[in-house]
């Protein structure tokens, strides 16, 4: 009898620990969720159902700009937007033979967007760095609507280095933000 009571007691305490943690998290997220939602709605009403690569590049570059400015909240919003527009991407112009690869890239890139939408800034940057390569591979298939610069900072990730894409030649480092704003160089120019 005592044992049963004890077990139930332990279980109840554990369960309440878990749920209170969760609710704190929820409350934190709720404040950002509101602004995210309005941003998403604006996006949804202005864009067509089938988005094209320029919308995807746009969303990627907004994540980059937010990270340059050390703005976790804006990066999260843009990450959510990216995941959304990737899900609706128009594959009509992609050649049959490349559809499978394009879909695999989109799946991974979407996963990055979703993580950027709900992570701390260091974690956002890790996903953003990995996302850069997927974006480059996607653009190799779909083409780009603007000139892009592939930029590289050798110091990122314990000197393993990290890359990103930018629409301007000038270096503004999203992997370090204000800590090392100008670290990096142009590695490649991706033309129309």
């Amino acid at each position, binding site marked *: 009898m005592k044992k*049963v009571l004890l077990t139930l007691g332990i*279980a109840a305490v*554990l369960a309440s*620990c878990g749920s209170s943690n969760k609710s704190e998290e929820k409350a934190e997220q709720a404040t950002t969720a509101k602004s995210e939602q309005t941003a998403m709605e604006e996006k949804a009403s202005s864009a067509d159902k089938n988005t094209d690569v320029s919308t995807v590049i746009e969303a990627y570059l907004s994540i980059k700009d937010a990270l340059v400015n050390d703005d976790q909240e804006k990066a999260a919003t843009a990450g959510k937007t990216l995941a959304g527009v990737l899900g609706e991407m128009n594959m009509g112009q992609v050649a049959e033979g490349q559809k499978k690869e394009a879909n695999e890239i989109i799946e991974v890139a979407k*996963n*990055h967007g979703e993580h950027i939408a709900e992570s701390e800034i260091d*974690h956002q940057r890790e996903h953003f760095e*990995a996302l850069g390569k997927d974006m480059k591979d996607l653009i190799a298939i779909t083409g780009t609507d603007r000139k892009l610069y592939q930029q590289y900072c050798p110091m990122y990730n314990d000197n393993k280095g990290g890359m990103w894409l930018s629409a301007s030649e000038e270096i503004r480092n999203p992997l370090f933000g204000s800590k090392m704003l100008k670290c990096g160089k142009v590695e490649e120019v991706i033309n129309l």
Partner: protein
Amino acid sequence: MLKKAIIAILIVGAGIQLIPVPKNQSDELPETDFFQSVEAPLAIRNMVIASCYDCHSNNTDYPWYGRVRPLAWFLQKHIDEGKEELNFSSFREYSDRMKREKIRSMISQIRDGEMPLQEYLWMHPEAELNEKEKKKLIEFLNQINKDGTD
């Protein structure tokens, strides 16, 4: 009054035990399991199974209290979320690109001590990875990402 309250708690406590919770368990090592696609030393294999598989596979080794509601619901939620993020049992179903990303993410989570989860380690101190084990595991994962999987 106190007696009544205790009786009420007991009745509710016993009652909720009747609500079914799905059991995340399976006897077979599926064809799609992570360790069917990579050659891993036994030590690494045991480490990953002990530290990750409870929440990231189709086979949870439940503790004795793990089936007691409401705790069982809480565990089930963890397992569902864990498997959605990464499921070792169906690892080979991921595309090569996704496999690389999952491994990249494993390395980062282990390195930063974000996984295994702290709450999990309270109940499973044996699942904690020391610095040496972390290093070994990260080296192993890095190697996979270099060599690729099938």
